């Protein structure tokens, strides 16, 4: 496994080095990462990158099957328009995580920022999943059109809210699973709470187990059947808003 020292390396050079490195060894480690953008952009299946430090914005943009593990926090727009692959972040993550992602999985150990999962969507068997261990900022799952977001809300302080406001506003597809029961006030008008099916519980079990494995946590105490599930009221939420002219 090759290690690339990213300290003080401009992002274009770093991404070039990654491209050349994976020609010989698809498993690489980046050390000393500070804010370099687009790490892992468009990379395909088989590539595995471990990152030490704080990768910059648009990490894993358009990623197409590669796997990235971050030992640290990540910034904004991680997994932007990602197609496939897996991201594991041992830390927290900024805003617009998984913007428009249409496939693959993202696991974040801690909290996630604003507009997480915004406009994530599914197509045929491509179903993106975001799992976050902490809480989320406002506009979680905004415009969501498919896939799933699982929010575990682990280790929240007393009175700390698991989601912000406007959760699922504009949602017209996909599911949001929340380990908690946030006030209706925090949700967009396009969302409704629906009951969990056995299939949901199996789905949750699978992803929670993976989360536990990645972050080496014992989550057997979680009562998956007590999770709240939210989905779109309607696939065409704005049908009645218009009149032709």
């Amino acid at each position: 496994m090759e290690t690339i020292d990213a300290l003080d390396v401009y992002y274009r050079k770093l991404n070039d080095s990654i491209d050349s490195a994976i020609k010989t060894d698809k498993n690489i480690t980046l050390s000393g990462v500070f804010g370099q953008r687009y790490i892992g952009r468009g990379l395909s299946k088989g590539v595995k990158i471990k990152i030490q430090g704080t990768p910059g914005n648009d990490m894993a943009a358009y990623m197409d099957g590669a796997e990235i593990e971050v030992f640290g926090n990540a910034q904004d727009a991680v997994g932007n328009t990602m197609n496939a692959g897996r991201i594991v972040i041992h830390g927290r993550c900024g805003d617009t995580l998984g913007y428009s992602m249409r496939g693959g999985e993202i696991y974040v150990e801690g909290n996630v920022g604003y507009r997480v999962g915004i406009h994530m969507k599914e197509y045929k068997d491509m179903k993106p999943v975001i799992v976050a261990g902490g809480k989320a900022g406002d506009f979680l799952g905004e415009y969501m059109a498919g896939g799933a977001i699982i929010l575990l809300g682990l280790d929240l302080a007393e009175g700390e809210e698991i989601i912000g406001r406007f959760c699922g506003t504009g949602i017209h597809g996909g599911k949001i699973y929340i380990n908690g029961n946030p006030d209706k006030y925090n949700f967009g008008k396009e969302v409704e709470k629906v009951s969990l099916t056995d299939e949901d519980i199996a789905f949750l079990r699978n992803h929670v187990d993976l989360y536990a494995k990645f972050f080496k946590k014992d989550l057997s105490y979680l009562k998956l059947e007590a999770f709240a599930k939210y989905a779109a009221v309607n696939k065409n939420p704005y049908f009645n808003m218009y009149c032709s002219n």
Partner: protein
Amino acid sequence: MLKEGEFRIPSGCAISGIIDKKGKRFSGEEIIKSIALMHERSNGLGGGFAAYGIYPQYKELYAFHIFYDNLSVKSQVEDFLTKHFEIESAGNIPTKSVPNIKDQPLIWRYFVSPKIYMSKEEVMDEDEFTSRRVIRINTEYKGAYVLSSGKNMGAFKGVGYPEDIGEFFMLDRYEAYMWTAHGRFPTNTPGWWGGAHPFTMLNWSVVHNGEISSYDANRRFVEMFGYKCTLQTDTEVITYLFDLLVRKHKMPLEKALKAVAAPFWDDIERESKEVQNELKSIRTVYASALINGPFSIVLGCAKGMIALNDRIKLRSLVAAEKGDRTYIASEESAIKIICDNPDKIWSPKGGEAVIALLEGGNNEPKF
């Protein structure tokens, strides 16, 4: 080409700030490193810093940093200064030659105090007297621009990447208890040094990221209270808003923040009657002070640093704490590069200010 103030130039940006809440001073090296990391967010057309606590030997005096285009306007402005102020000390601000920094103006510094009889005659306090003189120099003397006018603080800015500007002004040789920095990404610029950020007024300094959509509503509001937005920049109007609310209207800082990043009416409805009444009153009276559109700002003043995001958080902002220090930056990596293991690191919520003020001290410093 028209310069700032003659038309409006939208720009994006990077911001960074560090404060030691115990007032311990440190060199400009770290803030340069932090803002330099976000190089990608600037485009070399503007960079700058505000530093607080740098002139302890003159802390009772207003420190004017002035750009001059030529010697003739310099002598005119100096005549004006001599007439209105006692000048304790004057000299050029030392700089060093840096390859990417060109076309610098004459850069001078004066430590002054208002002529007491004049401010008494005009029945205004020294701050108001000084701020009006600064506005006069900036509007009436073509080719002169006061870039800072506070006490024990100063702004350093120019056309270039912020790290180059920092080197140009040799900020590693200054010691401040608080630094803020700005890297600018203007859509176009005439290359005027005065147009770089931070913008300052008395002790206020503002660095800001994002372009606000409420600009003209805010501008026309503050201009009712005697301000003149000569630069037509967001930073200028934001500075005046805070100066108006906090200095002139004497609003407590946290209430002023509720005006510029007002909570939603729906959220206000859910508060207790008393809080509701207060928030409603603020929104009603200061509706035009609401800053709308995406922004993250770091506001500096003698008391400390306040960072704020717009209420739906359209700009990124990360805060961290370690020991006595509070850090703020547009990107987390810009903090991590100078503070590898913070005690706490978080993304402030939209509209929720991070307030990091100097601790202790018997005499409350003014904003």
